[in-house]
């Protein structure tokens, strides 16, 4: 890691004031014995990450949160959100929003694409902030431990979609519903409005010999200061509507995923309708 935990704590206090560390200290997580959980999360890095993202969250993207009361206060749950914006700023904003809106604070565990684990420095920093590699085993272990998973079922095709496809959900993967049904976890649909316009993508260059799948060609060199609206929907109680063994029934899993996708699309439609403009 670029810095040890005590340096992360100093950085978070310097950037975010003493309150940043105080909040992180209240974080409930499964300490594996040295202040880290088994996946590498450490509260001091959560505080540092949150403080680093704060200027973007508060001043640049001016995030507005709607319906955060729908985030379960405890127990296993899955946040399923749309993914967009050419670079994964939406993940950082959602991560920060959940951390800020929950009390006691909950840290969502973003499930990242495999290639993220191969990126030097970034993979380690992300792991310290709670990101896990996108293997089924990691997700299963976290749900069994009662954690809050943050999944973008569109994956890389979502973030890499052409500007003309904005607010149109791409192929919606079903793994999150299979996991939720098997582990009795509710799914909270999340619609992120604003990210779809932040960095219009006009083309992409495949990178066949790199762990990164492609290089986005965007209309702007940096993300535009769009306003983010994060909409949380009512939890979809797959844990009540299905039995754990239904996770092995492809039809039921497909139906559950379609339900979640429709709920996210409805949040996006509502969010688009209610906002005053892209930058407002």
């Amino acid at each position, binding site marked *: *890691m670029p810095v*040890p935990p005590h340096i992360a704590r100093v950085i978070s206090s310097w950037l975010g004031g003493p309150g940043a560390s105080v909040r992180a200290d209240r974080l409930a997580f499964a300490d*594996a*014995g*040295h202040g880290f959980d088994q*996946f590498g999360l450490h509260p001091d890095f959560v505080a540092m990450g949150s403080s680093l993202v704060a200027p973007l969250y508060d001043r640049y993207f001016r995030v507005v949160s709607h319906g955060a009361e729908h985030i379960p206060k405890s127990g296993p749950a899955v946040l399923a959100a749309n993914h967009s914006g050419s670079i994964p700023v939406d993940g950082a904003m959602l991560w920060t929003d959940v951390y800020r809106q929950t009390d006691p604070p909950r840290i969502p565990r973003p499930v990242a694409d495999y*290639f993220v684990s191969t990126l030097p420095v970034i993979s380690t920093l992300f792991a310290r902030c709670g990101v896990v590699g996108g293997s089924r*085993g990691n997700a299963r272990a976290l749900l069994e431990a009662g954690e809050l998973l943050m999944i973008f079922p569109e994956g890389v095709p979502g973030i890499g979609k052409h500007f003309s496809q904005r607010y149109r959900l791409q192929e919606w993967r079903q793994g999150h519903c299979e996991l939720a049904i098997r582990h009795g976890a509710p799914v909270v649909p999340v619609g992120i409005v604003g990210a779809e316009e932040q960095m219009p993508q006009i083309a992409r260059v495949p990178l066949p010999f790199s762990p990164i799948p492609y290089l986005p060609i965007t209309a702007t060199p940096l993300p535009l200061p769009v306003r983010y609206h994060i909409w949380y929907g009512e939890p979809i109680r797959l844990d009540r509507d299905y039995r754990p063994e239904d996770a092995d029934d492809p039809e039921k899993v497909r139906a559950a995923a379609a339900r979640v996708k429709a709920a996210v699309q409805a949040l996006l439609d509502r969010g688009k309708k209610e906002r005053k403009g892209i930058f407002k």
Partner: protein
Amino acid sequence: MISVLVTGATTSIGERLVRSLLADTRVRHVLAVDKQPTHRALPFSNNRLTYTSVDLTKSRRVHELLFGPARDLGVEVVVHLAQSRSAYAVGRGVHARNVEALRSILDLSDRHPTIRRVVVHSFAVVYRVGLDLPVRVSEDHPLDLAPHVPQYVRDRVEADLSACTRMGLADCEIVVLRCAEALGPGTGSQLFDFLDAPVAFRPLGFDPMVNVATIADIVRAMELATHGSGEGVFNIPGFDTLPLSECARLWGTPMFPAPGPFIRRAYNLRHWLGGGEFSYGLNRKRMHFGLVLDGTRARQELGYVPAHPVDWPVGGPIAG
């Protein structure tokens, strides 16, 4: 009351296990075996202990051991620890020690008049590590069967699978314990050798989570497996789970991030100058992606819970 045969008895773990078994009133006799001559073997004696020098790479010697002293002492449980500890050792002789010796023991135990249980010491190194694989590893995790893996790993995987494929088919019960690395001299731990160097290098930008055990915990797991019933594969995690950089800090070893090709050459050079056993080629993926053993099964079926934290030279655990 049972009698126990321990192979690899002069290793750090073997010696500690023999001491523990001798202190156990449920154990009638311990037959300790290794290749060391008797006068250079165990530094203690006991009237319930017999030490025998045997070359386990010779199947005839294994036969003579099991159907000689082991049968005469009424050995019921074999704990097999004998493995080559060098990451650089290669060849048929090494394979014979790592794999063929276990095969012989399993073959013979199946038709042995007194042996009813074989406990096999396996290693976390048998598990495949990769970006698409989970960090927390349960017993059904893929094994490292890649064609290019060094003999050190290949032999361990082969020995592990040799034992696993006999489960349920043999008359005697087989227990495989896939243990976390025990931080101690003479355990063959790559991580111990890595930390014991004057300086350590890790890949630039990576700091994986590691799980480390103590000899005391590994020995405890073996004792539980010795006295238990039923068979299966069990992960034996250690008490300490922490990032590699924190491990080095607590061990008091200065650690520097460096590019992979440099690290490989530095550790190869160190080995050829007679300085150590750590092989970067062997551990490259482990130094990028974390691996933490899930000990749920061992807790539920053997009653094993890691209880002995590493006695870190520089500092203790921060929390927990």
